[in-house]
Structure formats: C-alpha cells, structure tokens
C-alpha cells in the first residue's frame, strides 16, 4: 500500500508516539509484542500521520492490535475486517489503512473476505499473524495447523489438511505476497516497508509464536541453529542461496525445484534460480515451497517478497468511473433526477 506522509513542518513522530495508554494484554512472551513494536517503528520511519492512519482488525488475539495503536482504529467482528477496511478505503483514498488478522480470523471464518479483498486489490496493508492455533478461545487447531495436531478439540489429532496462505493468496490473484517472522525484526521491518510501498492489497504473512498454546511452531525457521538450513531469504534479481555457509542453492531440475550443494563444484551461483518477484510462475512455485522442514529433502521455506506487481487498485477504478460518469452525463441535478424522464400535469 502506498501512503501519504505527515506534513513536514512537524516534529517527526517516534515509534512510541504510535502507542496508546492502554495496557497491552497479550500473554507475556507472545510474538505479537514484537510485531506491534516493528509496526510502530515502521510507521514512524515512513512518517505517517496518526490522524491519517487507521488500523482495522477482526476478532482474535492479533485483532486486539488497534487498541494499542494511537491512530484511528476499529476492532470489528470475526473474520470481516477486509470488508470494513474496503468500505473505509472506498470512502477515503488518503488514509493509510492497515488490516490485522490471524489464521483463524483470516482463513477460517473470514476466508471468503480474504479471497475477495485480494482479488479486488484494494489499497490496504494486510498483515496475517499466523500462529497455527486458536489462542483467544484457548487452544483449538486452526486452518493453518499441521495435520494430526492434537488440541482440546482434536484429542486424537486433527484430520483436516492445512491451508497454505501464500498459495491461497496467489490463487486469489493477489498483487503483493510476502512472508516474514516475528523473531527476525530487521527483516520484518524491511518487509513492512515494502508492503506499505505497494499500491494495492499487500498480503504479508508473519509467522508468530504462540508460547502458550503452540509454542515452537516455527522454531525450525526461527531458531539460530536451524534457520540457515530451513529458510531462504528472497531478494529480487538474486539467486536462491541459503545454508550455514551460504553453500546451498535452488536450481530447476526440469520443471521442478531442487536443492543443490554449492560446495561440491558441480553447481555455481550462476546455475541457480534467480528470484524475480514479478514472475507469476516462479512466485506460484515459491508458494509451494511448503515442505515440513524436518523432512530430509525439504525445500527451504521462502521469506521476503514472493510476488509483487503493479495492477490497478479497486478504489482508483471506482473513482475513475465516478469521474467518467460526470464527464459523460454532467454533474447530476437533483430536480432532474426526482422528475425522471416522463412527467404530466394535472
């Protein structure tokens, strides 16, 4: 999402200026704290005007977010934040609008709205806090939980297959798809900046640890020891390199991606997949890098901007049509409208 920035004659705001006086009530150690801090920092860095910023959320742990942001905000109803945010955007093109949702809010009860905001490309920053669990209702499996997850509602293990959020986004014709994690704050900030610069719906999936009900869900990706082996950080125009010594890469083996060892002499960086965030085919494949990291041949999980293209956004086209209608028919006259085309006198 692109945004307007604050007028320059004021003292620049700091991250803490975006915090409210309300006590933050997430559980101690929750990954949400880190995300809150980074969002406040990025808003200050962008130079947003608090009075021209709105944070809209649904229901769930992550959806408490607006109460902690000293901007305009709405804590709406379960799953529907995309619809509220879209309506607000259609009413006001100048606001910076941030939408905060979770895996249950965004992909279970609100799955329909997620599909439609993405395909419409409404100019909004959509942050999906994915912790693969229902936290606020105290620990049931979520639509992103892995198969066979044992929770209070699934004592013998869950039997529904998980949704892949980035693949869903690409299937919905999203124009910006990124992935970040709560524990890599520097990278998260970079991605939030990129998301904000995108004109249209920016979809950012953030892996977030729920230390109470699903602790360690993403440790394979976030832990220092395993992170280099399980993740690949994408950069536009750069090869897909990862590994402790940056000694691994991804190549195309025919039509399929394959992990190769750069140390053996068989492959060099020149042979690798070069990331092109504007390439829908490559991006589609990247969303399918979704293996269980514990598997031997697992592809690394991609972080960064998987896909970003410029497409017209919904409200711009809506306003264009309004202008066009006035150009073609003239500014509507109320008396003409009320009288209609056929009248008679008695």
């Amino acid at each position: 999402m692109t945004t307007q920035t604050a007028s320059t004659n004021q003292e620049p705001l700091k991250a803490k200026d975006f915090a409210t006086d309300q006590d933050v009530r997430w559980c101690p150690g929750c990954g949400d704290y880190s995300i809150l801090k980074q969002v406040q920092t990025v808003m200050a860095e962008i130079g947003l005007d608090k009075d021209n910023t709105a944070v809209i959320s649904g229901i769930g742990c992550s959806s408490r977010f607006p109460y902690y942001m000293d901007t305009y905000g709405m804590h709406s109803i379960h799953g529907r934040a995309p619809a509220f945010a879209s309506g607000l955007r259609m009413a006001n093109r100048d606001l910076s609008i941030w939408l905060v949702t979770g895996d249950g809010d965004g992909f279970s009860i609100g799955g329909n709205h997620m599909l439609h905001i993405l395909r419409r490309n409404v100019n909004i920053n959509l942050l999906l806090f994915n912790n693969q669990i229902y936290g606020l209702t105290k620990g049931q499996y979520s639509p992103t939980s892995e198969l066979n997850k044992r929770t209070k509602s699934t004592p013998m293990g869950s039997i529904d297959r998980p949704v892949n959020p980035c693949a869903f986004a690409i299937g919905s014709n999203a124009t910006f798809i990124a992935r970040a994690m709560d524990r890599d704050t520097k990278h998260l900030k970079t991605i939030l900046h990129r998301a904000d610069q995108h004109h249209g719906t920016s979809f950012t999936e953030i892996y977030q640890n729920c230390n109470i009900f699903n602790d360690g869900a993403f440790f394979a990706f976030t832990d220092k020891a395993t992170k280099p082996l399980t993740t690949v950080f994408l950069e536009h125009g750069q090869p897909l390199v990862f590994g402790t010594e940056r000694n691994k890469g991804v190549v195309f083996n025919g039509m399929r991606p394959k992990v190769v060892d750069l140390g053996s002499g068989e492959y060099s960086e020149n042979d690798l997949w070069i990331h092109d965030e504007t390439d829908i085919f490559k991006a589609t494949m990247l969303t399918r890098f979704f293996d269980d990291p514990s598997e031997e041949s697992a592809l690394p999980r991609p972080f960064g901007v998987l896909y970003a293209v410029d497409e017209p956004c919904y409200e711009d086209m809506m306003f264009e049509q309004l202008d066009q209608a006035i150009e073609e028919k003239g500014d509507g006259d109320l008396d003409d409208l009320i009288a209609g085309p056929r009248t008679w006198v008695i």
Partner: protein
Amino acid sequence: MKTDVKTRKAVTIKFAGDSGDGMQLSGGLFTSSTALTGSDLATFPDFPAEIRAPAGTIAGVSGFQIHFGSQKIFTPGDTFDVLVAMNAAALKTNIDTLREGGTIIANTDGFDKKNLRLAKYENGANPLDDGSLAGYQLLELPVTKMTRETLTDSPLGLKEKDRCKNMFVLGFLFWRYSRSLQDTIEFLTGKFSKKPDVLEANIKVLQAGYNFGDTTETFTSRYEIKAAPLEKGTYRGIMGSEAIVLGLITASKKSGLPLFYGSYPITPASEILHGLSRHKNYGVKTFQAEDEIAAICSSIGAAYGGHLAITGTSGPGLALKGEALGLAMILELPLVVINIQRGGPSTGLPTKTEQSDLLQAMYGRNGECPIPVISASTPADAFEAIFEACRIAIQHMTPVVFMSDGFISNGSEPWKFPKSSEIPDITVQFAPPKENGDTYLPYARDERLVRKWAVPGTKGLAHRIGGLEKEAETGNVSYDPANHEYMTKIREAKVEGIAEFIPEQAIEIGPEEGDLLILGWGSSYGVIQSVVTTLLSEGHSVAHAQLRYIRPFPKNLGNLLKGFKQVLIPEMNTGQLASIIRNKFLLDVKQYNKIQGTPIATSELLHAAKELL
C-alpha cells in the same frame, strides 16, 4: 356499425403471457398512457420465480396488473375486469381471479395443441371453444397471425416479428380505451433509435392492433375513464424500488454526504443496487460485495469514513447481517439497512410478498440491541420514508432498519413529486478537529444522548472503536458491571428518545375517536384506505392510521389507540405488529392475517372489519 363509448369509473386489466411475450413492457406502456389521461392508478407485476421457465408452461407465465379509474385508486385490485391471455397457460393461471362476467382478450394462436398440452388442459380440450368460458365475454384475436401478416414486407426474421405481437394487443387496448398512440410511439422511437427496422415493425403492429379494433365490427364497445380528482400539480409514475433510489440520492445531496451502497444481489432488493449504480454522476458509490455480511460490513466501514452508508437486502440477508448490525449499534455509527421483505422463512417465496420480518428487524440480534425501524407504505411513500430513515440515522448516530416489501417495491403509482428546494436539509454534526492535544472522548454525548461523528483523517481525534463494551465517554474497553448496565440503558434511551424528533401519529381518514381503528404498516396501506373509505361511506365510525415509525412509536400512539373501542391490525404475517402493540400498550387488539405470498384483498379485509362492527 357505430361503436358506442361507455364511461367506466374504474377498470382493472391483467396482462398475462409467457415470460418472453413482453407483458411487463405492454403493462408499463399502458400505464404511462393511462397516467397521461389523468386517471389515478396502481400497478403490480407478477413474475415467475424461474428466469426462463419453458415457454408455454404454467411456470413461465408472467403478469402485469393495472387498476385505474376516475376515483382514488388505492390498490392494484382484488380481481380484474379484463384478462389479456397470450396463451393457454396464461388463461389457466389467471382465470380464477377474473371477475364473473369479465372480458377475456385471448390470442387464439396461443391455444394450439402444443400450448394446450403445455398448459395441461385435459385431453387437449380448448377452453376457447368448449363452452367453459360461457360466463365471460370472450374476444378472440389471432394475434400471432395478424402480427406476421402486418409485417410481410419487413426485413425482420420470423422470431423478431413474433416479438412484436405484444404491440398488437396494446394497440387494440388503446382503441378499446379511447387512447392516443402518440406516447407509446415516442417511447418506442427512443428505445429502438438504433434499430430502425425493429422500430418500424413495432409501430406498424401497434397501429394494426388499433385499426383492428376500429374496423372489425365484432367489437362494438369502447370505454372511457375520466380523469380522477387528483391534486393539481406535476406528476410522474414511480415504482417503490425507484422511490428508494431517489430518496437515498436526495438524502445524500441534502446532507452533503457522499452515498455508499454496499449490497449483495437478492430478490427483490437487487433493483435498488441496479438503480443506484446507474447514477454515478450523482457521486453514488455502489459496491457489489461478496456476500450479505461483507455488504453490511463494507457499509459500516464507509460510515466510519464519513459517508451516508446504506446496505440493502431481503429477509434471508437481514438474518446474515445481524451480527454486524449489532456492531453498528454499539459503535453508534449511522447506517440504513433496507429490507425488502419477501415470503419466508429460509428461501421461502422469493418473488412473493410478505411482512414477516418485522420481529426480526426489531429483535433479531444478540444482546440488548435497540435499533429504530421505519416502514414505507406505498411506492411513492417510500421516497419520504427512506429519507426519514437516513435523517434519523445521521442525526441520532444509529443504524436504522428500513422496511419495505415486494408489493411496494415492484408496485407503481402516480406521484406528485416535490421540488428539491421544498425538501429540508439534513444537518450533520461531525466532531471538529482538535489542535490542543487533549484526549478526545469519542463517546461523550449531547442532550439527546447522541455522540459526535469523528471521521478518520480529522486532526486530533484519533481513537479506537470496536464491538467490546465501552467505558462511557472514553470508549475504552470496559468489563465493569455497572458500566455495562449504564451503557445498555443509555443506548436504549437514545433510541427511545428519537420519539421527540418524529411527528405524532395522525389518522389518515376517519374520526379521531370511534368504534374501530384499522392500524396498518407497510403495503397494507392501500387495502386499508379502500376498506375504510367504503365503511365511512356506509356510515360506520371507522378510521385508518398507518405507522411509518415502528421503533420508537410516535409519542401519542397509545392515546390514539385508546380512542377506539376496537383496533384491527391487518398483516401479511401471523400477527407481528399486533404482538408488539399488545406488549407495549396492553391492548386487546384484533388481527387479520394472510400468509399466502399475495396482498390482502379489499373484500377480505372488508369482511373482517364488518365482523367487528
């Protein structure tokens, strides 16, 4: 042979044919021609539920009814005097509603073997010649044949030629009712300006139908209906759904707020979405949402953003919007939810009319959730009523449920429309920007208990709103028990307080006190007017009162009801308003109820009223 011209006070005609026979267009054109003669009128279409049911079948019959006369016309008519039957199925579907001795104008070409079989006439018996229509006056017109003959020289294909046959019937009716063809020719000229062959064919067939009446000696009677004693002024025809569109745009202009309409297609409310989307040059933003829930939620988002936000639906959609409606109520944002009622429950009778969502509108939400309810009574009344719904929403910072039904939305009547300068402005109170950096109190209230509308983008007013219970004034989340009770009562008192800002309940016709009051809401207006007019002329002490404001009720309603020995409430439901009135005023009101997907007939209500007198 000279035809004599007979004068009639009122006539009801039903145009009936196959969905593809152009009955809605014929009916519409006959209506505008009728309006120009100065007659009063009321119309109602009767669509099949299927979009394209097989041609010639009972399920495919489409109808249009018009009641017009030289006196005040209140309803489209219980029965009709004339039935235009374009095929056998149209006759079979409608014959029971034709009055005894009425006239059938039948297209004999629509009664061939195939049509008779599709209409399921036993053993292919043709009602036109088996004597079963002996009690009626039967006018047989070989419409299809004559249409084709008229167009022998036309370059059109046979299918296109046959599409003109509704014009033959229309032309014949114009002859029968002593009308000029001018208005219809003007309309056709506009409609087919880019298709000169089609235009020429339609006009030729229209004239042929007229001339057929003029030159065929079989038809010796013509009729004339004089102008009705309508108030002087400039009129237009108006359908209920159209009146809502105009009322909404008027409210937008008079409040200075851009209009946002979020909706999901649903019969019979889609007409409003279509209507508004044609008026983008009035700054109207329409949003076809992905579902009913997104429709109301996007509207709430737009309301938060400072727009006049509306969502429209029918009963099943209102059920889906319930949770979000509760949010709009607790947020205290202006919003109008339009409910064009249809037969329920569940999918029910989508193309039929009913008034069975009143209790849903009043109570169909979780928690203590008071919301004003406003109702339209006639197609033209919908203009003022929707304007009032917008005024109350904006000035009292509350969602409002606006009730109409299929009968009002699809019905039409002449409307002496106002000049825009005669319509009052709607003043809006936005919270002004703050420069001093003090904490803003989003839920501080004025003497009417109304909070101010603080729109994102306003300097110094950044604040959070949400569905959790709020602390008074600050709006911060609060689980305090006493605060919850206080806020519940404040929200209730705010809505009840609207009674101070609406007109007192008036009697439509009849005495202020007497033996019987017939109390109506919604589309029963016409039938009650008709019945009370009759009873008054017979010397009974009867009056009619019609509710526009159902929540809150006008302040004087209780006293007004107590001025009558009996109160009768006719409704197209099992007695929903009656139960609200009983509950509120502890009055033993009587009910008349009909739940058949069709409006209450004058004869039915007259009978029910007379039993109480």
